[in-house]
């Protein structure tokens, strides 16, 4: 990856009215920028300041909501700036997280049906599928190669939000290998629940059915948002993903998809997941070698 990283420069601090501090770590997306955001968020949470309401790490920026009646804006800003200075001096950044296998039925009939309803006026190339378009704009020979590239290297959950529980994912590969696909020309009014989508360099999994502008490549086989908290993976919280999670997509067939659906139905489904420590310097030095190491963790369970 490129270095020196803009993420190591000082962040830009600005205010969202009287209740929000916005810290832009970098204008452009990079693993280093996201890592710095997550470190800022974690250290700020650890500082345990009274008056902090929400700490929202995003791809390359941090949003903090605070109660100015309890925590004056200037105190908050100086605390975050202190945390940032410490981070810049601390070269060795690592993150205790987990790697999760997420089964996906690529090129599925659910997203295909919805895509067909939003072609003319919505899509760049209405005559083909979203996958055809994605393969073409990435100069790949066919959709199979695109799908292969999509799942063979893992992704980092760089942000959770938009709507409840929706993860944005950034693939852990060099910038020149990032899959980039423009969003729809105009957003759809419908997207199937659990659609695996893509916009710009980000993948997303739609946690709920609704509007969306990302290209659609498949559906995840198991829930990622469960307000009823009926599955074991949701026992503690209704949202599955957290920023910093590492995701390995696993392609599944229709039969495997149906088998997982049956397990979800009878309440026995569990995601395959293992705790790992993610070290930024290793990921930057040799992304694919380091990814191999991370993915091997999944083989021991």
């Amino acid at each position, binding site marked *: 990856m490129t270095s020196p990283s803009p993420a190591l420069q000082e962040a830009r601090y*600005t*205010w*969202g*009215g*009287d*209740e*929000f501090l*916005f810290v*832009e770590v*970098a*204008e*452009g*997306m*990079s693993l280093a920028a996201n890592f710095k955001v997550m470190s800022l*968020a974690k250290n700020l949470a650890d500082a345990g300041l009274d008056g902090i*309401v*929400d*700490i*929202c*790490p*995003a*791809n*390359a*920026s*941090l*949003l903090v*909501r605070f109660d*100015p*009646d309890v925590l004056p*804006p200037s105190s908050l800003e100086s605390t975050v700036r202190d945390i940032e200075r410490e981070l810049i001096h601390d070269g060795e950044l690592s993150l205790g997280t987990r790697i999760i296998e997420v089964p996906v039925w690529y090129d599925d009939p659910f997203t295909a049906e919805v895509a067909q309803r939003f072609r003319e006026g919505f899509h760049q190339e209405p005559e083909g599928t979203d996958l055809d378009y994605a393969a073409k704009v990435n100069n790949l020979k066919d959709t199979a190669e695109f799908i292969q590239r999509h799942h063979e290297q893992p992704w980092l959950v760089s*942000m*959770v*939000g*938009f*709507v*409840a*529980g*929706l993860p*944005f994912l950034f693939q852990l590969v060099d*910038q020149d290998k990032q899959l980039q696909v*423009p*969003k729809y020309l105009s957003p759809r009014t419908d997207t199937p629940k659990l659609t695996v989508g893509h*916009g*710009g*360099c*980000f993948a997303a999994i739609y*946690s*709920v059915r*609704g509007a969306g502008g990302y290209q659609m490549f498949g559906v995840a086989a198991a829930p990622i*948002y469960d*307000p009823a908290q009926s599955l074991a993976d949701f026992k503690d919280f*209704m*949202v599955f*993903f*957290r*920023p910093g999670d590492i995701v390995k997509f696993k392609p599944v067939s229709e039969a495997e998809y149906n088998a997982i659906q049956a397990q979800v139905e009878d309440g026995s489904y569990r995601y395959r997941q293992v705790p790992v420590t993610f070290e930024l310097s290793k990921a930057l030095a040799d992304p694919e070698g380091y990814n191999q190491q991370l993915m091997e963790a999944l083989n021991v369970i």
Partner: protein
Amino acid sequence: MSFEIKNPGLATTVQDQGRTGHYNVGIPQSGSMDQYSAELGNALVGNGPGDAVLECTYLGPVLVTDADAAVAVTGAPVEVKVNGETRPQWTRLQLKAGDELSFGTIQGGTRYYIAVQGGIDVPEVLGSRSTYLLGAIGGFQGRKLAAGDVVPVGGAGAGGAAVGQGSGLPEVDTVPEEFRPVFAKEQSVRIVLGLYDHRLTDAGRESLLTGEWKVTPVADRMGLRYSGPGVEWKEREQPFGAGSDPSNIVDAGYAVGSIQIPGGTQPIILHRDAVSGGGYAMVGTVISADMDLVARAAPGTTTHFVAVSQDEALVARKELAELKTKAWEALGARR
């Protein structure tokens, strides 16, 4: 006790002061859009400010109470009817078991509130009874009310906050005129410029602050869209991952109350059911004290954005808190 919903109205939901602490996973604060009006409804019926109310949008519900109940309707001006007879708004009404509450046509604004002594008693989800429709959590089964729903009401004073003596009802049964909000066809909304306002050209910023903007019909609990002269973004080579339009940024967290202007055409103010993030640059944020004002704007409302400093925003915040305290005192209600 409970309310039986005969007709749900257009979009009636259970709301309170909202839930915080989960915006980092995309769960918005929700809660009554016009907090001031909802709180004063609670004050009239002896509740605490955090008790849950019914938020009605344009067309209110028809409901029947199965027990005697003290209720109050506040917020946008609307004809309030008990068993078909007109009754005053901003006043406590004593309903008898079997009485029917219904509404005429809204005369301004967008939302009005039904507060009931004891509060709407649905289960709390993540610390709040507010409905978050997209995520299908909170409120009545995570959705807007439907005909046939039986909505539980808490026992008197069940809201957990201190209430007055005896009946729990405050001495005064009507909110004095001076404490009622105005639902005007023209508004000045105070904003703090910032976030990505440096990406606007000087002309663009000038247009935002001097232009006349009108609320479009595309306005709901998530946000309000405005039409007007548009603004100009600076051209630039877009950073990696940011999308191709100059109004695009690498997807970031959205402040509640922030103003984004996709493509430079129609500003959108995000409100209490905001999407928590996305790829459009924000140019400023409505001050916390004016969020209720924005919530009262009906489509067609002419709006001027007035830039203030963060210090001025904090003064306005304090003034609003003092106004609320005075209003509660005027009723003899205890917060």
